[in-house]
């Protein structure tokens, strides 16, 4: 084994190992072809090549292409000492694999005569050619039987089939799971009879990548049960995959959940024709995009428009003498698909009955919800819809204060009283983490004590946050439901739409956990666990488990599809898993949806949501895993490179999440000494985890602040666009569109910046150097404190001392100019020391961090003044430096006070007589 240890620690996942092995095989085989025959070097080289081939053999057995069969051919070529042809063949296969081109033409590998230069032609078929996928067969069969299966399936295929597929056969349960993990292009699984459990193929090379599968350990299950168990696991880890089961068990003896697990059950293994058609049908069902297809069809029809929208069909554009360049830029299709029609195959978003209804149903299935609604005005609107649908004026919403501003405005609109939760501050990097569960529980119990818990309708949290903090959704919901069993959860998953498509992430999403908990609380096993838990409670101790008779699962997630998946900007979805939706909220939800949804929704956005859904159902797993892989590779690169290390730190788990929230002990994803740490355990149990695709780089040692670094260095010099910065950090993200090339470009840019910084430093005069050092010190050692939410002024509080305030009243009081005045920032402190209470009359939102440090009705604290004073950003919404803070006049704060008329009348007061 060549450097196997080194190889493994260098590779984050099997894909990397696979490609690197092929590349090194390519290199070593070409050296072999140049070795002189019979020399010692040649012998050594033969051993080297054989070792790589063996490594590849264990990997390739999980893929249909190039496949174990072709690897066998390579071994044979070696035996025949045809080293030149051998090296050539390997180079071809490697090129196909690296470029992914075999997917558009799997026959490229079959065709012995096909030369590499012909591959360019294959490109032309891209998009028009058949889509290629792989089908996993799980059955303990011989190689001969395997080959027969392949040829049988090939025989029943016809040229008119819409899709092409290759066959991967695995003989054991464990191998099937490994294949599913490694091979992201498996789209259907056929489990035939009862596979044995233990894999015989797990080599030391594979082991680090399959530990989670070894840990499953279902050896004790009887073989006959393994088929259905495997089916269920497939649905758990890759729910989009079609599963089929071939069995002898008669229908009467099949368990209900076995029937539910599989998309279809077959009785005769020989019925290859039926199986083939079923597999293709399953793929076709996912491939369908009802609205997008309808829009394409519509745009082909000749129509006369006697309605609004002159731009429709491009009529006002292409004939124009002045704006036809606009038309040419976007192309004809864009305008042919612009219409206000809701008929002719199209549908109305406000009351869908046709293609949009079906498209939303398909999305609901793909994202694991009970109901899904498309939203064309972004997640800002989705958030407002959900809040309006579920809370009414005077209700209480527990909400993280550093959530997106749309929530704060949503609360103003709905008239709900926010109880602000504080995320823990990370002062060193001028950012906030997430809200510890204990704090949420404390606030809820405080409300309970004040008799106000019934008003607390909703817990609203951002998951994950912009910076990549991810909650333990299951733990939060479970422990909150234990206190208030009908709590509604709104998870703002604006940054987390992609999370549903790989298991580690999925288990921390609203929809997945809602489904999981709902099933869990119905079981007898849970009831026993609950009763025992209650019995074991000490006096005054709060239960951590919800009462199974009272608990209601009511979960809403809002996702910016466009942020992390394929959709046009503003494409957003509301996913609902609410067991009381029909009974309690459907009407108010629809009203709220009507309130905020345009009656002219953008069809291109809707079509993109539909197409994006198809994409994640086929390649979501692959692309998400890939974006994680690229993020990991980048993290490692910056950590390992001495020049990059000099100026940049990739901040990791331990920098962001205090120890007490990391029971797994995972503190970094990559360590230059020990290589990759597996994230599985941390993602299963820790209170908070860090999404590795959100990469925060500490740039304090460059002496350049985040905002300048973003604009003057990354954007102006390299056209690299990033979004968020803090004083001393910049945030980079990988997504499903990130390529290896873009990661390389970024790394390269950082290297060039490092060079430039080196040069600049050398040319500094003594005086300049002092200033430079002072700047570095300021960025690395002076940390402005991050203020918590203070409290609402008592005239806005519902009950004194109990959290929650009437933000809407405060907001609307500021409509009248007479109610507020400005106090310059420098005078705030003396004014407060003089005994006056300053209360904000507007939202004050600095960018960054991008959330309000003051909300209407909030009392200004010393800490907030200090924060605003030292804040070095230029963009502060709601604050004009030349005017100062906009605060309420005292008369407003005392608005509930009045005079009494008693004793003012001329006659003696009635009371005086008494």
């Amino acid at each position, binding site marked *: 084994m060549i450097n196997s240890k080194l190889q493994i620690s260098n590779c984050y996942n099997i894909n990397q190992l696979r490609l690197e092995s092929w590349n090194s095989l390519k290199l070593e085989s070409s050296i072999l072809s140049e070795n002189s025959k019979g020399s010692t070097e040649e012998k050594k080289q033969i051993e080297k090549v054989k070792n790589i081939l063996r490594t590849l053999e264990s990997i390739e057995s999980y893929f249909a292409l190039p496949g174990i069969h072709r690897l066998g051919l390579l071994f044979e070529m070696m035996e025949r000492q045809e080293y030149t042809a051998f090296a050539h063949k390997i180079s071809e296969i490697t090129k196909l694999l690296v470029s992914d081109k075999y997917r558009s033409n799997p026959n490229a590998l079959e065709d012995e005569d096909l030369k590499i230069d012909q591959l360019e032609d294959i490109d032309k078929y891209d998009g028009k050619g058949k889509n290629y996928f792989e089908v996993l067969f799980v059955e303990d069969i011989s190689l001969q039987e395997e080959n027969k299966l392949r040829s049988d399936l090939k025989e029943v295929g016809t040229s008119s089939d819409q899709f092409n597929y290759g066959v991967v056969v695995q003989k054991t349960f464990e191998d099937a799971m490994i294949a599913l993990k490694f091979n992201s292009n498996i789209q259907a699984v056929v489990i035939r009879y009862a596979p044995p459990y233990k894999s015989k193929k797990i080599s030391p090379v594979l082991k680090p990548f399959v530990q989670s599968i070894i840990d499953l350990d279902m050896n004790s299950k009887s073989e006959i049960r393994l088929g259905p168990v495997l089916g269920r696991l497939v649905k758990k880890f890759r729910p989009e995959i079609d599963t089929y089961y071939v069995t002898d068990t008669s229908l009467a003896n099949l368990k209900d959940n076995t029937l539910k697990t599989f998309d279809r059950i077959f009785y005769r293994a020989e019925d290859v024709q039926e199986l083939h058609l079923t597999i293709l049908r399953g793929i076709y069902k996912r491939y369908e995009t009802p609205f997008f297809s309808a829009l394409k069809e519509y745009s082909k029809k000749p129509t006369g428009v006697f309605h609004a929208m002159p731009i429709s069909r491009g009529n006002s554009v292409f004939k124009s003498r002045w704006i036809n360049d606009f038309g040419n830029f976007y192309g004809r299709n864009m305008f042919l698909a612009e219409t206000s029609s809701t008929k002719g195959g199209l549908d109305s978003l406000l009351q869908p009955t046709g293609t949009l209804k079906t498209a939303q149903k398909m999305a609901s299935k793909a994202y694991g919800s009970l109901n899904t609604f498309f939203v064309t005005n972004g997640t800002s609107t989705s958030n407002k819809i959900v809040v309006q649908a579920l809370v009414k004026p005077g209700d209480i919403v527990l909400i993280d204060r550093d959530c997106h501003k749309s929530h704060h405005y949503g609360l103003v609109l709905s008239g709900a009283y926010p109880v602000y939760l504080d995320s823990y501050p990370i002062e060193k990097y001028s950012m906030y983490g997430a809200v510890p569960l204990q704090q949420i529980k404390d606030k809820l119990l405080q409300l309970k004590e004040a*008799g106000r818990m019934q008003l607390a309708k909703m817990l609203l949290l951002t998951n994950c946050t912009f910076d990549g903090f991810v909650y333990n959704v299951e733990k939060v919901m479970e422990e909150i439901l234990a206190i208030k069993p009908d709590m509604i959860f709104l998870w703002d998953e604006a940054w987390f739409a992609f999370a549903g498509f790989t298991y580690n992430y999925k288990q921390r999403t609203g929809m997945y956990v809602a489904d999981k908990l709902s099933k869990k609380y119905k079981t007898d096993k849970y009831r026993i666990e609950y009763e025992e838990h209650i019995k074991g409670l000490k006096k005054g101790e709060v239960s951590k488990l919800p009462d199974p008779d009272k608990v209601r699962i009511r979960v809403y997630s809002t996702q910016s599809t466009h942020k992390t998946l394929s959709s046009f900007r503003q494409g957003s979805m509301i996913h609902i898993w609410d067991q009381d939706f029909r009974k309690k909220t459907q009407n108010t939800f629809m009203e709220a949806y009507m309130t905020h949804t345009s009656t002219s929704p953008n069809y291109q956005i809707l079509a993109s949501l539909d197409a994006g859904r198809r994409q994640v159902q086929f390649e979501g797993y692959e692309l998400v895993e890939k974006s994680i892989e690229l993020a990991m590779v980048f993290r490692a690169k910056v950590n390992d490179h001495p020049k990059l290390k000099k100026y940049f730190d990739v901040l990791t788990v331990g920098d962001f999440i205090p120890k007490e929230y990391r029971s797994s002990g995972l503190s970094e994803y990559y360590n230059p000494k020990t290589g990759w740490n597996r994230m599985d355990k941390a993602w299963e149990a820790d209170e908070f985890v860090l999404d590795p695709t959100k990469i925060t780089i500490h740039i304090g040692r460059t002496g350049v602040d985040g905002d300048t670094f973003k604009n003057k260095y990354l954007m102006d010099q390299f056209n690299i666009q990033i979004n968020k910065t803090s004083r001393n950090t910049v945030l980079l993200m990988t997504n499903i569109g990130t390529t290896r090339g873009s990661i390389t470009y970024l790394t390269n840019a950082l290297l060039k910046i490092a060079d430039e910084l080196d040069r600049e430093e050398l040319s500094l005069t003594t005086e300049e150097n002092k200033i430079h050092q002072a700047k570095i010190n300021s960025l690395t050692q002076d940390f402005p404190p991050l203020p918590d939410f203070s409290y609402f002024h008592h005239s806005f509080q519902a009950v*004194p*001392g109990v959290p929650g305030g009437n933000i809407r009243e405060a907001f609307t009081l500021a409509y009248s100019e007479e109610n507020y005045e400005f106090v310059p920032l420098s005078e705030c402190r003396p004014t407060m020391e003089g005994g006056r209470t300053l209360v904000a009359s507007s939202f004050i939102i600095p960018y960054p961090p991008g959330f309000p440090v003051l909300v209407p009705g909030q009392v200004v604290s010393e800490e907030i003044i200090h924060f605003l004073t030292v804040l070095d950003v230029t963009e502060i919404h709601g604050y004009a430096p030349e005017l100062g803070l906009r605060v309420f006049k005292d008369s407003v704060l005392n608005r*509930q006070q009045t005079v009494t008329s008693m004793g003012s009348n001329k006659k003696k007061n009635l009371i005086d007589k*008494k």
Partner: protein
Amino acid sequence: MGGTSPKVKRQQKDFISWFEIPAINFQQSVNFYNQIFGIDMETNIDDNYAMAFFPVSNGIGGSIVAGPGSTPGDSGPLIYLNAGKDLNLVLGNVENAGGRIVMPKTLISEESGYFAIFIDSEGNKLALYSSQ
């Protein structure tokens, strides 16, 4: 009518016959008044409405009412509740009971006495009165 006074000037002993304080959370409201006045209100609950009565011997009485049409608010008429000799004894309990003091004990005039304003646990604005 503007400015012209009615021909017959009527006078009567009381202009209040009865007062009602609306509540959403009935029990919470009853607890509030029980606590601030140190009383034990009698309640009457049916399918639609819940009521609790301020114990009076022979003066003007009133009640807490929860149910349809009975909505608390901090605007509208202001009722002055009789807080005995020194209203601070009642007012001192307001915040503990879940209310909020809007105006502390305030002198009206030597001959008229004192008043204070608070918001009860349901968000109603009320005043307290005492002669000392």
